[in-house]
């Protein structure tokens, strides 16, 4: 469903991604983990069309989407929940959710999708007419997820959905990710919380210094010595090389 080939992205003279290639098939949940500054967010922002790649190719559902505008990719079926959630704080919960359906015209289906989101996250129902900046961090993450779901994405990109949240809330967020996969959405999730990532994802990529250090089925990766080295001891290893 998503095929990334030799993707390089740079901020000015600083290279963030160096020739990354990977593939995600439909219905999979794939995690990307790695230390700060490894290029995880850059990867998601490039797929979502916010950053323009320096070179390489991104294909989605068999079509070349490299360099396409972010707003056009939403209609193609790609939604990003960025790091820090970026809910519209001055707008109400209702307005945030309505904005999630910006690319759609099917009013009735939108209304029933909103009901579904509110059933999934009942706290949002209680605060439906309140400004979103009044929500707690966890509630904001739920709102951000719900907003992304309202675009009916085929590929959902999640950037650090557990960042700064209490464990109980993280459970709820990850439960909703599992629910989404049940409904057939493909998920690419970036995480610093390795345990969470490995638990939810079919396959995992370890990103380090803008390159894929390691990859494999999550169940096989966990606990191996090579994984520990790749994830925790990367800088030492690179120096030795």
């Amino acid at each position, binding site marked *: 469903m998503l095929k990334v080939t030799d993707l390089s992205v740079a901020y000015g003279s600083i290279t963030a991604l160096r020739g990354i290639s990977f593939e995600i098939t439909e219905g999979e949940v794939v995690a990307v983990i790695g230390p700060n500054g490894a290029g995880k967010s850059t990867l998601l922002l490039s797929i979502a069309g916010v950053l323009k790649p320096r070179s390489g190719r991104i294909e989605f559902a068999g079509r070349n989407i490299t360099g396409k505008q972010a*707003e056009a990719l939403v209609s193609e079926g790609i939604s990003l929940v960025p790091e820090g959630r*970026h809910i519209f704080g001055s707008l109400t919960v209702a307005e945030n959710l309505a*904005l999630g359906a910006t690319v759609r015209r099917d009013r009735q289906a939108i209304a029933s999708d909103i009901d579904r989101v509110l059933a999934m996250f009942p706290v949002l129902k209680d605060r439906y007419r309140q400004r979103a900046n009044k929500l707690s961090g966890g509630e904001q993450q739920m709102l951000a997820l719900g907003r992304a779901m309202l675009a009916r994405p085929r590929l959902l990109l999640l950037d650090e959905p557990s960042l700064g949240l209490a464990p109980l809330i993280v459970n709820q967020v990850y439960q909703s990710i599992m629910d989404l996969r049940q409904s057939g959405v493909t998920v690419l999730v970036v995480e610093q919380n390795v345990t969470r990532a490995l638990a939810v994802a079919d396959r995992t990529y370890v990103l380090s210094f803008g390159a894929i250090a390691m990859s494999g089925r999550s169940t096989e990766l966990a606990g191996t010595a090579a994984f520990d080295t790749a994830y925790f001891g990367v800088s030492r290893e690179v120096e030795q090389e």
Partner: protein
Amino acid sequence: MIVLQNAIDAVSLGAVYALAALGIGLIFSVMRLINFAHGELIMAGGFCLYALVGQPLLVVILAVLIVSTVLALGMERVAFRPLRKANPATLLISSFAVSYLVQHVVLMIFGSRAMGVPFLPELGTSIEFLGLRIPRLQLVTVITTLVLMVGLVAFFRFSRIGLQMRAAAEDFTMARLVGVRANRVIAFAFAISGILASMVSFYLVAQTGSVSYKMGVNMVLIAFVSSVIGGMGSVAGAALGGFLVGIISVSLQAYLPVDLRPYRDAFVFMLFILFLFWRPDGLLMSRADRDRV
């Protein structure tokens, strides 16, 4: 009674300043551009009025609206869209360039002398009301402004595109990530700023009875100051700032010693500088905006 008379003057001048400031504030809120060429939208509307005065009123009003709006959309397309990813300073310089270009094109065609425009001279008369003399122009101005503002609020609150504009004003990248089309939202903002500018054109021409290629310059400065006082990025703040500057100007006009009255604007700008020491972010600066990365 004189106080009440002054209050009426203050409110009507404040209304005009608020319209002008709204035009500036709206564009700034969606694309971080301080559009100094906004004054030229006002001026272009004025010259359209000059060309068409005497025609049926409805035709004149529509034509002025269209000229200012089309010019606003044209500016966006030619001078600002290609620079959208550039930094705000570049956009600002571009707006100065557009401003001078339009001014000097008009200067070449019409010359530098102000030209008289007999636009609805009956607006210069007053109606008596409870012992107050209310100039018709002020009455029309205040009513038009109120109608426009109510319309704008309704547009922002209830329309799809209005909601998208509010989202884009708060977080432009995130708005695009939910599918808001950047070009469309920005074009709408410019179209609205054109409509607001044309309203100021009507007022200025009716008030002064003339047009000149520099007629928008002073207004755009006042509008800029007003939107800074309200808080750049806050549309409501721009309107509030406009009213405040109008009220302060009229108060100074009324209560300064007679010798100093010609220098009213100097006092207005001096107060503005003092205000900035007190509230550099303006009155209604939104927190979300300050926290923007």
